[in-house]
Structures are given as structure tokens and as C-alpha cells.
């Protein structure tokens, strides 16, 4: 079995850096900023190294301090987890605040988010997951409010309340699990689950966990914070939360589903919430009048689609979900960057194509991809989803139909906005001009999308192997339980 102690680095480095950063910032204003970036870079390198190992030698685990599972704190890294850790690293790097603020707060919070997020996906233990989830949550409250506007504070406060309530529900779920199984280690639970968690108590526990973690995963209906936060938080924070952090929560939910609660009612629950999320998100986005909330609603819908994908039993569904999640992680932040310039009515976009043609083209490209137009990556993600859905029970056919109908609505609102871009400017006011530097992250993401288009075949193979690995319950259990000696 593959034991890798450095599995702790992606979690530990940023957390330690987060503690040190305020001190460093105290020494010198500019130093703090550089220190933060450096910490992210180091974390990234450590993560990349780890990912390389994992990719080469298979999933790895490590028990903290030598205490083996089920008693000790166990970290478990497979390709799926490492992919999202890397994604988180890249995201934090890309969306690092560009302004030369002297406040070290946001940097600290970002590093905390980075460490917490990595811990979230790497933990092999239910309680640790909860702890890291809380760390991420706290970091995101702070980040959401870091814009400094009154609306941002209000939104953050409501977000906090909701999230806290969700967390307490999750805690109840964990308590239920513990009461039933007497352990919180995922591998242990995976082995015990068929005996002790199959049935009403298990279902109740899953429901509570789902609702609790669903707050961050933008699951219907505990996502009312989404439009508000995404409209008021700084664009980089929004991009990070919508693009990456929400997926981390979904990955955790996936782990629960695969390892602990592989039962029809659990799958059905996630499916139902996913379908409702798609419906709610797409329809509400269709009626949204400004770009920011359009994308916020659309993000709810997209996460609903991912939830539907994860609710399909078997590796095919997981693969589809991963593909959708990665695609969304690339596209949505770019969208938020574009939307950042036009906070307000969509009509303000009028004539945008004339003042900034590249941005308009990027918008169209992203829209086409997220609707799922071949040969862009979004199509292939959707293809995987439909492939998986149609090979499952008829309930998933309905879900597929909803996703397809949702794509039509999505096309309607995205191209309504595109129509404003390419329509003539209204009298007296044209669309705002972009400063060249502001959209660099968006263009980088657009470029990633295009590159991905030409690498569909290897990407697809990689994602599929990832999914197979993530769905292989005995192997995971064995690795967690036996590893880390």
C-alpha cells in the first residue's frame, strides 16, 4: 500500500503560511503580499509533486502521527482529490487579489481557504471533513465581505447564518452516523455501511449531511446566498467560490455517497435536488436582468447538473460529474470576470463588441461551451453526462431531459446578452471599455478552454480513470485502513 507522508503538505503549508502572513505583513507592507504568493506557489509545487506521485503509483494515504485509521487522522489522496487540490491552487493563484492593498486580511483568508479546501478533499475522516469544511466556510465569509461594501457585509452575514445552520445540521448527521456505526472514518464506514447504515437512520444522516454541505455546494434549496454573495463580493472571490470551492463541497458529498451511503434513496435525493436546482437556476437566470445575477443563477443550475451527474451510480456518472465540474471551474470564473465590468442591467452591454471585440468573442466562446456546443469541451462533458444518464434508470432520463431543456434556456439568456454585445450602442452611452490587464485571468481561462478542446481524448481518458478510481470502494477502504503505517 502506498503511504506518502507529504500528503499533509497541501494542507499544512498554506495554513502555516496563513498564520505567518500577518506577522510578515507587519514587518513590511509589500512583503506580506509576496509572502502569500510565494506560499501559494510552494503549495502548488508540493501538490503537483504529490499529484505526480499519485498519478504514477496509485492512491496514497497517510495517518497523522502514526495513529492508524480508524482511530487516527487519515488523509487520502487519489487522482480525483489531487485534481481538485491542484485546481484550487491554480485558482487561488489566478484569482489572487491584484490590487496592492496593504491589508493582509484577504491574503490570510485565501491561504486559509486553500489549506482548508485541500483538507476537505483529502480527509479520510468524517469529522476532519467537517472541521475543514468549517475552516473553508469561515474563510469564505471573510472573503465575501472583503469587498468592503455594505451590501457585501449584509450578504456575508446572511451567508454566515445560513451556513452555520447548515453546519449544525451536518453535525447532527455526523452524530447520527456515529451513533449508528461508532466510527467516523470513511473507510470504516464503507465497510460497516451495508450493515448499519442501510435504512432510515442512514438515509436521515445522509440527508442532514447533504443539506449541511449543500450550502457550500450551492445545492437547491440552500443556495439563496448565491446570487447575493456573487453580486456583492469582489470578482476574484466570486470566481473562486463559484468556480472551485463549491465543487470541493460536491466532491465531499460524492465521497459520502460512494463510500458511505450507496443506497437508492440517497442517490434519489441528490438527483431530486439536482433537478430542482437546474430548473430553479436556469429559469431564474432567464429572468435575471443583470449579468452578475444571471451567472449566479446559472452557476446554481450548473451545480445542479453536476449533482445530477454524481447521483448516477457507477463510474460513468462520476466521470461526467468531474468533467462538468472541471469545465464549469474554467468557464464560470471567466464569466464573472466579464460580468464584473457590467454590474447592472444587461442593456449596458450594448455595443460592447465594438469597444472590446475580444471580450465579446470570449463571451460567445464561453457561452457556446457552457451550453454544450460541439466541439467545445462543454459538449463532451454533457455528452458524458447523457451517456451515463441514459444507461441508468428512467428517472435519469427525465433528469437528462431537464438538463437538455435547461441548455435551451441557457442558450436563450446567454445569447440575449450576446445580442446586446453585438447590437448597436444606445444613444448617448456605449459599453464600458476594458482596461487590458483586468481580464487576463478570463483570457487565460478561455485559452485553457480552447487548448482543452484539442485535448479531449487524453482528458477524457484521464477523467474516466479518475472516476474508476473514485468509484472503487474496496480499494479506497483498503488504502485508508491499511495505509499510513
Amino acid at each position, binding site marked *: 500500500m502506498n503511504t506518502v507522508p507529504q500528503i499533509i503538505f497541501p494542507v499544512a503549508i498554506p495554513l502555516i503560511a496563513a498564520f505567518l502572513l500577518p506577522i510578515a505583513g507587519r514587518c513590511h507592507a509589500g512583503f506580506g503580499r509576496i509572502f502569500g504568493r510565494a506560499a501559494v506557489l510552494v503549495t502548488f509545487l508540493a501538490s503537483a509533486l504529490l499529484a505526480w506521485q499519485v498519478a504514477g503509483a496509485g492512491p496514497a494515504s497517510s495517518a497523522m502521527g502514526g495513529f492508524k485509521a480508524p482511530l487516527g487522522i487519515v488523509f487520502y489522496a487519489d487522482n480525483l482529490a489531487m485534481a481538485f487540490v491542484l485546481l484550487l491552487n491554480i485558482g487561488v493563484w489566478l484569482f489572487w487579489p491584484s490590487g496592492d492593498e496593504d491589508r493582509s486580511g484577504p491574503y490570510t483568508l485565501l491561504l486559509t481557504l486553500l489549506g482548508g479546501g485541500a483538507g476537505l478533499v483529502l480527509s479520510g475522516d468524517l469529522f476532519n471533513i467537517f472541521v475543514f469544511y468549517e475552516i473553508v466556510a469561515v474563510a469564505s465569509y471573510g472573503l465575501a465581505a472583503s469587498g468592503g461594501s455594505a451590501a457585501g457585509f449584509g450578504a456575508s452575514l446572511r451567508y454566515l*447564518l*445560513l451556513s452555520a*445552520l447548515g453546519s449544525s*445540521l451536518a453535525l447532527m448527521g455526523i452524530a447520527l452516523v456515529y451513533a449508528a456505526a461508532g466510527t467516523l472514518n470513511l473507510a470504516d464506514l464503507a465497510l460497516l455501511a451495508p450493515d448499519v447504515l442501510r*435504512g*432510515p*437512520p*442512514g*438515509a*436521515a444522516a445522509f*440527508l*442532514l449531511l*447533504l*443539506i449541511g454541505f449543500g450550502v457550500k455546494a450551492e445545492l437547491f*434549496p*440552500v*443556495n*439563496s*446566498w448565491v*446570487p447575493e454573495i456573487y453580486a456583492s463580493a469582489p470578482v476574484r472571490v466570486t470566481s473562486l467560490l463559484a468556480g472551485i470551492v463549491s465543487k470541493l463541497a460536491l466532491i465531499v458529498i460524492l465521497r459520502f455517497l460512494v463510500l458511505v451511503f450507496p443506497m437508492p*434513496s*440517497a442517490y*434519489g*435525493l441528490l438527483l*431530486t435536488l439536482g433537478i430542482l436546482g437546474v*430548473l*430553479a*437556476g436556469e*429559469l*431564474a437566470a*432567464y*429572468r*435575471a436582468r443583470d449579468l452578475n445575477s444571471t451567472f449566479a443563477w446559472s452557476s446554481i443550475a450548473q451545480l445542479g447538473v453536476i449533482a445530477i451527474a454524481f447521483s448516477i451510480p457507477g463510474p460513468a456518472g462520476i466521470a461526467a460529474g468531474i468533467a462538468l465540474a472541471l469545465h464549469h471551474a474554467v468557464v464560470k470564473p471567466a464569466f464573472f470576470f466579464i460580468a464584473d465590468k457590467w454590474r447592472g442591467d444587461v442593456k449596458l452591454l450594448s455595443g460592447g463588441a465594438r469597444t472590446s471585440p475580444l471580450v465579446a468573442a470570449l463571451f460567445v466562446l464561453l457561452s457556446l461551451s457552457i451550453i454544450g456546443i*460541439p*466541439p467545445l469541451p462543454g*459538449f*463532451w462533458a*454533457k*455528452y*458524458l453526462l*447523457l*451517456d451515463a444518464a*441514459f*444507461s441508468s434508470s428512467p428517472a435519469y432520463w427525465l433528469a*437528462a431531459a431537464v438538463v*437538455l*431543456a435547461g*441548455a*435551451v*434556456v441557457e*442558450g*436563450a439568456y446567454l*445569447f440575449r446578452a450576446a*445580442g446586446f454585445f*453585438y*447590437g*448597436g450602442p444606445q444613444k448617448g452611452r456605449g459599453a464600458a471599455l476594458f482596461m487590458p490587464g483586468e481580464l487576463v485571468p478570463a483570457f487565460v481561462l478561455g485559452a485553457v478552454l480552447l487548448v482543452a478542446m484539442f485535448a*479531449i*481524448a487524453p482528458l*477524457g481518458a484521464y477523467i474516466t480513470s479518475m472516476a474508476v478510481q473514485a468509484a472503487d470502494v474496496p480499494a479506497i477502504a483498503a488504502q485508508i485502513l491499511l495505509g499510513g503505517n
Partner: protein
Amino acid sequence: MSLLLRRRFFWEEIDLMSLLDILLLVAALLASGLFVLGRGSFAGWLATVVYGLMLAVLAIAGLALDSGVAFIPSAMSFEILGRNLGWRLDGLGWFFALLTVGAAFFASWYGSGEWGRKQKRMGLQHALLALNVLAMLLLLSSGDLLSLFIGWELVSWAAFAIMTQGGGPAVAAAYRYMIYALAGAMAVFAAIMLVQNVTGGLGFADLQTAISAMSTAQVWVLFILFAAGFGVKMALMPFHLWQAPAYSETPGASSAFLNAVSARMGLFALILVLVKLTGLEALGSLAIPFTFMSAKSALMWVAAITMVVPTFIALMQTDARMLLTWHGIGQGGYMLLGVLVGTSLGTAGGLMHVFNYATYQAALFLAVTAVIHRAGTSDLDELGGLITRMPWTYVTLLMGIIGLAGLPPMNGFVSKWMIYKSLLDGGQPLLLIMAFAATLGTILSVYKLIHNIFLGQLRREHQHLKEAPVSMVLPMLILAGIGFVTGFMPGLALNITDIAQRAIGGDMLPHHLGGVTLATGSLNMLWVVGVLIGAIGAGALIFYLLGNRRYEVHQFDNYAGGHFLSADIRYHFSHEFYPGLARVIGPWYRGSIVRAEQGIGILVNVAGDLWQAVFRVAYTPLYMLLVVVLGLVFTGSWGIVP
């Protein structure tokens, strides 16, 4: 053509493997090249020349296909996510590809001259036209269901891009199109995924396997998804509302291209999937419970309704472009009907109608564009008498409308005749009557078109108009000329459709240069047109030899009940041209489908508002508890709570 192939020719020496690759490569290079060079004035001419070369390549490919080669493969293929994506051009695709490149050739030629110079961003239009051609070629040469779907989407979005070039209302129309096309594409997507679910593959053969393996209900779902999905592009009723405004608002030359071939992509896909792969017998055996009808006859009736209703909507239009595009929708119904009859005559008729329609509709649209170019409007209430100013445009339009109305001597008559005859021989009198009725409506409608634009009083503001320049007149006259030649010698067009028909399978239609000879009534256009021309010549002799010389008078030297006509009085009878008919069928234009479309829009709006309201109230904790409770009930874990 088949006669020519008794000998070996140079194209048999060429590696046939490369023909399709050459075609695709040239199209791709042209599209990308035009995006770069588009601003140059030579771009259009370059494109025209390249389309001409592509036509030559297609001709060689056609000869190869005619000599018995099943298809021309492409070296391009991918393996993605465990699926093989491949492209190959068979006879059916070749036929549509020929029309596509031909239409692009004429549209590009037309757009290269004076008309193009007056356009705002002609370079972009040229580039988008090339992009459309590329997308269509990819669609037409698709080798499996996945590449078919990819091509399908590319065609849809390329068309969308070119439709938006008109700006203003064009963008709104294109947006509407986009929503319809997207919905259709999603239906097709779902359908091919269903097939894949059953067979685990996406090859064309898998579709056939799937249909035999599926339950009746599943086959029905598949049929409806395919028919609706592809039908959207073809503007089959009730998915037809988008087409007329979208095609009308597209700038002239591009619009002619779209009108001629774009909607036919839907027909191509329908023929490929429903006729070639599924087979009409399978459709015919798919009975609708409690009726006498099957899926096939239901689709035939849809085609027939698509033929009649849009034609009579066209009759009521007041804009020349709208009138023509509505007819385009109606003509699509003829083609589908012919193909669905399933006899060799019907299939050949339907396919020939595709060819014929492409020639005369392109000519008509180019002619109307010439009118817009000179007179500045296509409003049928604001034109008149242009025959003296733009005689060649008039000739084009006249030949075009004769074709559109399906009268001898133009080619439209031949294909319609074949469709009528196949319906008659197929024992479908009611559909035949509908086809006749639609033709009658077309005659009324096209007369209104030509009358309101070219006949009647010439307005003062049009006194100084000139004929359109040669760069515009020549392409449209050649198109109209093709329409006449293939009407005179339909065998030429039938040779081309033969290649497509062979690819579809089934019996071939024996024909000769002049038409077809059947046991139950024949058509020899050589005689019909020959005698007609001869008789018109005799009429000319009678006219010129008997009686005194003619003396041409001014348009105001006209008897209007003793009234003095002059330039400041508008007396051209153009508005509400058929008042009696309007009084009878006017109340039928309730627009139930328009209402349905609006209803769906309102439903989406209301549902969207509802969801927004749910979130905006923001009692999320309450929802959370509600969902927990409901979820507990749902998961059956309620029992543990008390």
C-alpha cells in the same frame, strides 16, 4: 454521366481517398483565410474562384460516385471518449454538398461586386459564408451519428452567425432561430444518446440495430425526437415560426444562400436518419394506436400541412423577402412529402425539388436583393412598375416565380409533377389535393410578388432607377437559366439526383433526358417545352404578322373610368392584393402556433419569476427545515424521528 464512364478517366487515377479531404481542407482554408483577408476587395472574387474549384472537385467526386463507388472516405478521424468520429461523403451528402457549394458560388459572386461594396462588413459576410459551407460539408460528410450531431450544431451556429449580420431586427430573428435550433439540437442529442444506450455505439449501423432492439415506445420516442429535432431546421410545422423572419433579415446574398440550402440540411438529416437508416417500412409499421395512421403517414401529413399553411401565410405577406421565405417553408413540405412516399418516383421527385428549389429560390432572392439595392425597399406596397427600369431583374424574377409556382417550362414543374404523380400512384389523393392547393396558393402569391414590384405604376421616386450591375444580374440570370435548362431537360438534374437516390437505397427511377416514362402517364419535357416554345413562337408570328404595328404608350395613358392619371397620384393596386380571399381565409389566421410560442415564453417567464421569488424571500432556513422534513419522509426515515 453514366455513359461517359465507360472509359477510364483521370479521376480514376487520382487517389479517391483524398477528394473529400481536399474539399474540407480547401473549405477550412478559405473560411480562415477570409477571416484574415476579408477586408480586401478581392476577397469575394477569391472566394468565388475557390467555390468554383470546389465545384470541380465535387464534379469529379460525383463521377466517381456515379461509377459505383459507395462513398468517398476522409482521412480525418478521431477517437474521443471511446467513440470513433469519422467522415465520409456518400451520394446523398454529395448531392447536398453540390447544392451548398453551388449556392455559395453564386452568392459569393453576387456579393463580390457592387452589392458587396455597399455592405457594411462584407468581408465578415464572406468569411461567415465560407464557414457555413465548411460546416455544411462537415455535416453532409458525417460518417456516424456523433459526427452528424457535431456537424449539425456547427451548421446551426454558423447559420446563426450569418443571420445576425443584418443587425437590428435580424439579431432578434436570429435569436429566435437560435432558441428553436438549440431545442432541436437537444432533441437530436437526446435521440443519439438513446441509440447509444441501446447499442453502445454511435455508428449509422448502430441506429439500425437499435431500432430493431428497441421497444415500440422507445422507437416512438426516438422517431419523435429525430423528426422534431431535424424538423426544426427544416421548419416543419409547428416548428416553422423562426424561419421566415430569420432568413428575410439576413443580408441579400447570404440570405439567398441560406434560403437555397440551409433549411435543406434538415431534410438531409431526415432523409439520412429516417429514410436511409430507419427505412420507410419501419416507419410505416410504427402504427399510431386507435387510428389508421402510422409514423410515416403522420409525418407525411405534417409535411402536407407544412406545404399548405405557410404558402397561404406567404400569400398575406407585404414584404417580398418574407413572402419568399414563407414559400421556402412550404416548398420544404413538398420535398419531404416526395421522399416519404417512398417510391422511386417520389424520392427522385423530392430530391429533384431540392435541386430545383435551390436554383429558383436563390435566383428569386438575388433578384429581390437587386430590387432592394436599387429601390431601397422590399415592401410590396411601396414598389411598382420596375419592369421598365430593371428588365433583367424582372426576367430573373419571372423565371423564378414560374419555377416556384411549378408551371412549365421551368424545372419546378417537373419535380412537382413527379411528386404529384407519386402521390397519385401511391394512393394518397388527399395529400395530392393538398399539394395541388398549395401550388394554387403559390401561383396567387408569386403573381402578387411580381405584380407589386415590377408591374403596374412606376413611382416617381423610381423614375431614375437603373438596372442592377452586371455582377448582380449575371449570377441570378445564370441561376434562372439553370432552372430553365433543367426544366427543359430534367434528365440532367435527374442524373444528379440518381447519385443521391442510389445512396439512399431502394429502386432507381428510370428516366431519360426529357423526363420519365411510366405506365400510368409520362412526362417528356423536351416535347412539352419544345411545343410550348414553338407555340409561343407561333403566337409571336400571329402577333407580329397580323395587324398593324404596335405603338407603345406612356403608363398614364390608361383608362381609369375617365380619370386623368398623373405622377402625383398613386394608383398601383398593391395593398391587400387579394381582398376577397382575405375575407374568406383571413379569420383562419388566428396564429394558434404563434400563441403557443408566446405561451411557452410566458410560461418560462412566470416560472423564472416564481423561482426568483422563492429565493428572494430568503427564508432559507425555513426551506432548509422543510427540505429536511420532506427528505426524511422521502427517504422513509420518518420512523426514527419520534
